[in-house]
Structures are given as structure tokens and as C-alpha cells.
């Protein structure tokens, strides 16, 4: 996998420190480092957020210990503050910031192009064209970082990070690495008061200029087939699509192709040389015209004026693939943009195939919690509560039947947004946030509610893990990234300390929880600051733990003679294990999928849902 390739490359480059906050598509970089940390003798951590992760790894690098910090593209926004300063202060050992971008938004709230961060911070951006390339380029990026004492942004994208490819290893992981650093009190660098900052900016601009001038060679810029009149300049993964599209067209020999792996700042010499011979130029890059903008600048500076195309033929949004790139090149050639494959038309089915967005898993504790909170709100006559939401599996509560996320912007946003809303609307406002997100960015917002006398409820869904990204541990798990036992930081203690009256519920006990939450709503109506922590393990993890420990979970079934077909279970819960077979009037439970949470049995008004198979006596242990 591309992410594993990045991790391996970094290990070979001799890093001894790595930190991250998990986020798709970046997660496996530090995950794979954590899994070999002890063996490799390096330190690895899951930090509470990207800013903290950045600070930690950067501190190592200014103390002569090579380090890596990884995050998804939107995570860089969280770390942007220190990122900007690090460009000024520079580093003493190789330091790579991996930004895993997500063109096409497979699992993100936007598709921002983080090459701009390089422009903004004057930190060079290295971008691979494939997982194999990533493995090699990480090592080159460390060299570049140390040569110029400057951090490097290593931009990966989903199709690099999550593509698997065989990678031939070139080197061993060095047995000797520098893990103990030393901090030099060069306050001129580390203390960015205006006088120092101005001086550092000169250093930084110098580095910038030098890289632009001197790094125009492989592996950063590679020119294939020089001297042709038709040129394609392709950045990062776009190069892979271009190479294959040209091959499919039988036109590989007609073009000079410039493979760009250092898009920011773009070294201009090979560009000038290539454009001198060129008549027609196409720039293919994913998302924004970052390379295009710079090529135009180079053209102007050198009095070159070939016929240049870029974003007029290549889409500016969404991820590129072979289809789109093939079409773009065909358009550039002035041909019919028909691909050599004739795609099958969709089947004309009635009814149509319904969309299948992601859903909460069978047995997901969030389903129980959402059900409980909605019923309790009714019970307490809290009308039309507004639910603000956050980033995690529970974001899926925005869908039917729950509608328990009405906003979702960024990590920790639910609480700040709830506070603002509660100041301007009359309805009760409930901020829904996951455990990991609470540690990441929910605490400052919670303090703000108390301090500014807000009136929104904080509802923390604690499922023990950072579940969506693959169950990484966090301060509430009691384990570190490297698998060591550690202190647990209970969320309810934090909330109590801040000043919330805090209710902890076990959502598996539906009735009892409804009563407790209704009580919380009453307190809220009296004007007390209330918080609720709902605690039950992520179903995926519970099932996995059960399998490992040889625990059998219960399985439920619907007694067809008792079932009246009222559809309460179907319509209130949306559990994917409960389906209505084609033409049937009553639902059934797909027993292979049932996780045995028992929610449906507690909800059915006719007691038609019963145990089909009992779990082992200790089955409950898998869940808590």
C-alpha cells in the first residue's frame, strides 16, 4: 500500500520519531510505523490532533532527530499555524509533513489541494506518481529537507495512499539511528519575534530560489523523449494516467512528457528547455492549476509562447482517472474524445437500484444512542431538538431514520456551532461528538460553553476507539500506539471538571438510558449545563474481540407469527441486518449479519423479536 511504502521509505531514511492524528487516507502511514516501532527502535504516537502531532514531530527535527508527521489534507488546516512558522524557522534534521489529499472526496468534507500550502508557507512539495515512486521519493525528500534545512510537504492522494503495488526494497532500515537529539538555543530561529522572523524569511526565500534553480533533475523532474513539438507536463499521479493514455493511443513517441514530482516550487530550467522546442503544450494535474500557474510564469519570464492548455481540457474538480485523462488528451489533439472501450450502459431495472451510502453497522452503539436520545427528548417534551454534528462514523446519523446530525464542518465543530446556535434559537441544541474527536478538538469548545453561559447539551459517543479510521487507540482507550498500557482519561471527568452536570449511560440498556437522558433534559430545561456520555464499544471491534476470545454473540430473529408487520423496527432503527424481502409484508433478520445488540427486541411493540441463538455466558464482555 502507498501508505506502507511511505512508512518504509521514512524508516530507511532513518527517522526515529513519528506522530499523527488518524484520518483517511493518511492513517496507515503511522499505523504501520506503530506496528514496528519497538522492533525498529523508534518512537510513534497518536496525538490528540494534527497541530499537536506536528508540534511534537517538529520539535524532534529541530533537535537533530529525523521525524515524520502525517495527516489528511484537512488535518493540515488544524496544524496550519505551526506549519507556517516551521517554514520560517526551518529544521536541523530531515522533517516530512505527509499531507494525504482526497481528490474526489471519498471520505472527507472537501477536496482542497494542499500544494497551495507549500506556496503559502514556502515549504517545498514533493509528490509521487505511484506507491513505488512514493517509497523512493520519501527518501529523496529527506535528503532535500536536510540539504536545505527546510521542512518538506510530501503530498500523497487517495490513489497513491490506498493503492497496493509490489515495491522492491532497495535498502535496509538502518540499525543505527539518531534517536537522542540535542536542543540548541538558537533563539533567533525558534523565537519568531518580528526581528527574528524577518531574518528567517530571508533564509527561507533563499532556499526557495535555490530549489527553483537547482533541483530540476530526476527524481524531481524527469523529461522523457525530449525535443518533440508536442509536450505534456504531468504532475504526481497524473503522470501515471498520461503514460498509459498515450500508450493506448499509440502516441508515446510523439510527445515529450515532463514528469513533475516537485510541483512547488517548480524548478524552471527543464521547463524552459522543453518549451523552447515546443509548439503545443498540455498540463495535466489533479485539482487546481498549481503547476500550470507556474509554467505560465516561466513562459512569461523567458519570452516563450507555445500554445498552452491545462484546466480548459482537464477537469479542475474530482479525481483524475484514465478516462478523464484520455479524454483530455484527445481534446487537446482535436479528436473525438471517444475512449477505446465501449462501456456497458446501466441496466434498466425497475425500481432503479437504490443509492447505497455508508450506514451505521449492525450492532453500532450510535444507533442505540440516537434512538434513546430521540425518545428521551420526546418524553421530556423537548421539542424539535437541533443536533449539530461532527466527524466520525456517527456523522451517518444525518440520514434517515435518525436525522441527528444537522451540521458537520470539521473536527470539534459540533460544540462550537451548537454554542453559537443556542445563543440565537429557542429549540434545544445538542452537540454530538465522538470520543476521539472530543479529545482532538472538543474540549476548548466545551469550556467555552460553560464560560460563556451557553445552553447546548454536549453528547459524547464513546465507543472506546477512533473507530472510523480503523480503531486506533486514544486517551480514553488506555493503550498507546505502540500497544503499551497507559493512563485512561475518562471523558466524564473532564466534563465534570469543566463544570457540566454529566450523565453516563450504557446504551445497551435502552429503557434505563431513556430515563436518565430524559432526566438530563429536565435539568437542561432548568438552565443547568448538561453533558451526556454514552459508552459502548464499536460493533466492529466487539465482533472482532469476540472472535479472538472465542466468545459467541447472541443472534436475534423475528417470529413471523407474532410480527404484525408494523415496521417499527425497520423504520426507527435502520439496522442493515433487518431487511424486508421482496414482496414480503414482514421483516426478517439476516442472522449472519446480526451482532446481537438486542436493540430491535427492545423496540418491537409486539415482542416479536426474540433470541434465536443465545450468546456465550460472558458475551457481554465483548462489548465493554
Amino acid at each position: 500500500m502507498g501508505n506502507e511504502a511511505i512508512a518504509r521509505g521514512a524508516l530507511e531514511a532513518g527517522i526515529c520519531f513519528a506522530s499523527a492524528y488518524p484520518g483517511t487516507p493518511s492513517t496507515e502511514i503511522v499505523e504501520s510505523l506503530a506496528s514496528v516501532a519497538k522492533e525498529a527502535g523508534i518512537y510513534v504516537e497518536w496525538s490528540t490532533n494534527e497541530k499537536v502531532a506536528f508540534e511534537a514531530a517538529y520539535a524532534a527535527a529541530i533537535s537533530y532527530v529525523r521525524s515524520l508527521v502525517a495527516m489528511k489534507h484537512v488535518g493540515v488546516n488544524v496544524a496550519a499555524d505551526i506549519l507556517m512558522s516551521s517554514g520560517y524557522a526551518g529544521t536541523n534534521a530531515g522533517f516530512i509533513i505527509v499531507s494525504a489529499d482526497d481528490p474526489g472526496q471519498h471520505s472527507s468534507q472537501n477536496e482542497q489541494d494542499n500544494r497551495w500550502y507549500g506556496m503559502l508557507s514556502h515549504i517545498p512539495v514533493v509528490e509521487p506518481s505511484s506507491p513505488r515512486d512514493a517509497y523512493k521519493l520519501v527518501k529523496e525528500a529527506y535528503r532535500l529537507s536536510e540539504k536545505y534545512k527546510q521542512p518538506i510537504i510530501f503530498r500523497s492522494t487517495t490513489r497513491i495512499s490506498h493503492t497496493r503495488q509490489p515495491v522492491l526494497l532497495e535498502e535496509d532500515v538502518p540499525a543505527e539511528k539518531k534517536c537522542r537529539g540535542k536542543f540548541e538555543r538558537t533563539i533567533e530561529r525558534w523565537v519568531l519575534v518580528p526581528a527574528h522572523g524577518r531574518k528567517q524569511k530571508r533564509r527561507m526565500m533563499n532556499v526557495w530560489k535555490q530549489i527553483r534553480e537547482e533541483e530540476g533533475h530526476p527524481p524531481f523532474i524527469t523529461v522523457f523523449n525530449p525535443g518533440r513539438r508536442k509536450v505534456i507536463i504531468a504532475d504526481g499521479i497524473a503522470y501515471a494516467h498520461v503514460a498509459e493514455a498515450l500508450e493506448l493511443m499509440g502516441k508515446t513517441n510523439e510527445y515529450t512528457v515532463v514528469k513533475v514530482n516537485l510541483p512547488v516550487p517548480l524548478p524552471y530550467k527543464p521547463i524552459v528547455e522543453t518549451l523552447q522546442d515546443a509548439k503545443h503544450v498540455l498540463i495535466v494535474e489533479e485539482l487546481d492549476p498549481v503547476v500550470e500557474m507556474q509554467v505560465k510564469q516561466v513562459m512569461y519570464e523567458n519570452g516563450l509562447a507555445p500554445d498552452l492548455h491545462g484546466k480548459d481540457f482537464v477537469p479542475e474538480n474530482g479525481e483524475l482517472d484514465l478516462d478523464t485523462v484520455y479524454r483530455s488528451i484527445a481534446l487537446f489533439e482535436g479528436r473525438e474524445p471517444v475512449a477505446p472501450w465501449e462501456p456497458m450502459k446501466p441496466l434498466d431495472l425497475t425500481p432503479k437500484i437504490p443509492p447505497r451510502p455508508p450506514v451505521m453497522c449492525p450492532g453500532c452503539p450510535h444507533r442505540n444512542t440516537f434512538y434513546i436520545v430521540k425518545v428521551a427528548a420526546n418524553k421530556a417534551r423537548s421539542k424539535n431538538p437541533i443536533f449539530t454534528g461532527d466527524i466520525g462514523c456517527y456523522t451517518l446519523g444525518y440520514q434517515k431514520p435518525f436525522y441527528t446530525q444537522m451540521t458537520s464542518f470539521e473536527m470539534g465543530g459540533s460544540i462550537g456551532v451548537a454554542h453559537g446556535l443556542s445563543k440565537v434559537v429557542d429549540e434545544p441544541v445538542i452537540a454530538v461528538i465522538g470520543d476521539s474527536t472530543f479529545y482532538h478538538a472538543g474540549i476548548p469548545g466545551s469550556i467555552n460553553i460553560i464560560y460563556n453561559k451557553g445552553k447546548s447539551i454536549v453528547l459524547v459517543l464513546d465507543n472506546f476507539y477512533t473507530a472510523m479510521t480503523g480503531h486506533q487507540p486514544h486517551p480514553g482507550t488506555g493503550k498507546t500506539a505502540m500497544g503499551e498500557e497507559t493512563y485512561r482519561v475518562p471523558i466524564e471527568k473532564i466534563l465534570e471538571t469543566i463544570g457540566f452536570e454529566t450523565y453516563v449511560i450504557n446504551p445497551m440498556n435502552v429503557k434505563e438510558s431513556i430515563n436518565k437522558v430524559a432526566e438530563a433534559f429536565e435539568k437542561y430545561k432548568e438552565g443547568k449545563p448538561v453533558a451526556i456520555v454514552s459508552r459502548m464499544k464499536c460493533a466492529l471491534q466487539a465482533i472482532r474481540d469476540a472472535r479472538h476470545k472465542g466468545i459467541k454473540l447472541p443472534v436475534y430473529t423475528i417470529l413471523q407469527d407474532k410480527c404484525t408487520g408494523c415496521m417499527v423496527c425497520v423504520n426507527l432503527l435502520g439496522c442493515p441486518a433487518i431487511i424486508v424481502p421482496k414482496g414480503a409484508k414482514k421483516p426478517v433478520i439476516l442472522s449472519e449479519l446480526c451482532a446481537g445488540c438486542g436493540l430491535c427486541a427492545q423496540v418491537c411493540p409486539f415482542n416479536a423479536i426474540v433470541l434465536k441463538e443465545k450468546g456465550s455466558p460472558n458475551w457481554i464482555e465483548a462489548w465493554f
Partner: protein
Amino acid sequence: MPKRYNIVVAGVGGQGLLTLGRVLGNAAIEAGIDVSIAETHGLSQRGGSLIVQIRLGEGESPMIPRGAADLLIGLEALETARQIIYANKETRIVMNKFIWPPPLEIYPDLDQIIEKIKGRKLRLYVIDANKISEEIVGSIISANMAILGYSYAVDPGLQERLEYKHLVKGLERVFRGKVLELNKKVLATAYDLGRKQVEK
């Protein structure tokens, strides 16, 4: 021009698509063939539509153009139908006899899907992979390996590139112990079933 062999695996997040991709990928490595596998993770893995794109042969672009699949493996019927756009007239389609409707939606039925695919004169193979897995493992967890064994048996393109022993080796790189043994059995059982189908 070295043509890449394109395999699209479609299904629902959680059905073991990524694992199927990894086994095939490892099999390719065992066979000394270059391979790339494009996956998606995170939220898209939570019970939503998911496809994994596997390309055998040299080349770096990880994505399969629509219409360019040589083999389409569908672990669920609605998802197989949805991803038919990756197929062309020559594509072999292997579909699990399993329909898993998204909650609270109306949907076309299995027979209709089969009929419509056949109506296009496509090479469709239907296999009850869940059942094979359940009979051997006791749950549907290995349906992915069942459909893989079957697909291998019915797809000459795959056989041309990989030997059966490579698949087994691929399996050995992903699983261990008892789970490995069970999965080997699932693979072999489905493979035999596929062979019989072809001989018919």
C-alpha cells in the same frame, strides 16, 4: 502493447473486498506479475457501495476505465448491477447470489437483475458464495474467498496469468492457522464448483 488485465470487485463495505484484493495481489506477486490494487477506506467502507480495482500487468495508473474490466466480481447483486458500467461485451461477470438491500429502500429483485444482465448477452455466472462459506466456516465471512475460487475457475484470462497454486500462496500471505485452513477449503470447494460449471 502489454495490455493490463482489469478486475473490478464490487460489493458492500464490510464484505471482505479489500481482503479479496489482497489475496489476488499476493497471488500476482507469487506469479511474478506486476499488479496494482486501488482501494477506498474510511467512511466509504461503512456499509456503502465499494469497489476495488485490481490491474495485472505493468503500468502505474491504478484506475480501471469504465468499460475496460475483463472480469467483474460482484459480492452482492445490486452492487454488481450498479458497476456494470465497467463491463464490455467480452467481460466475464461473476455474481454472488445475495441481495442485501440498503435499509429503508425499495429495490429490484435478484431474478430481474440476472435476466437483464443475460439480456445483454453478457457472460454471467451466479454462485451462492455465502452458502459455501457458511457450510464450511459457519458464517458468511469467507464468501469473498468462495467467489474468488469460483471466478478463477470460470475465467480463462485469470488462469492464463495465475496458477491455482499462486492463489493458495496468496492466501497464505494473508491468513494463518485455522482461518487459513478454512479459507483454503472454501477456495477449493468453490473452485471445483466452477470447474464443473465450465465443463457442463
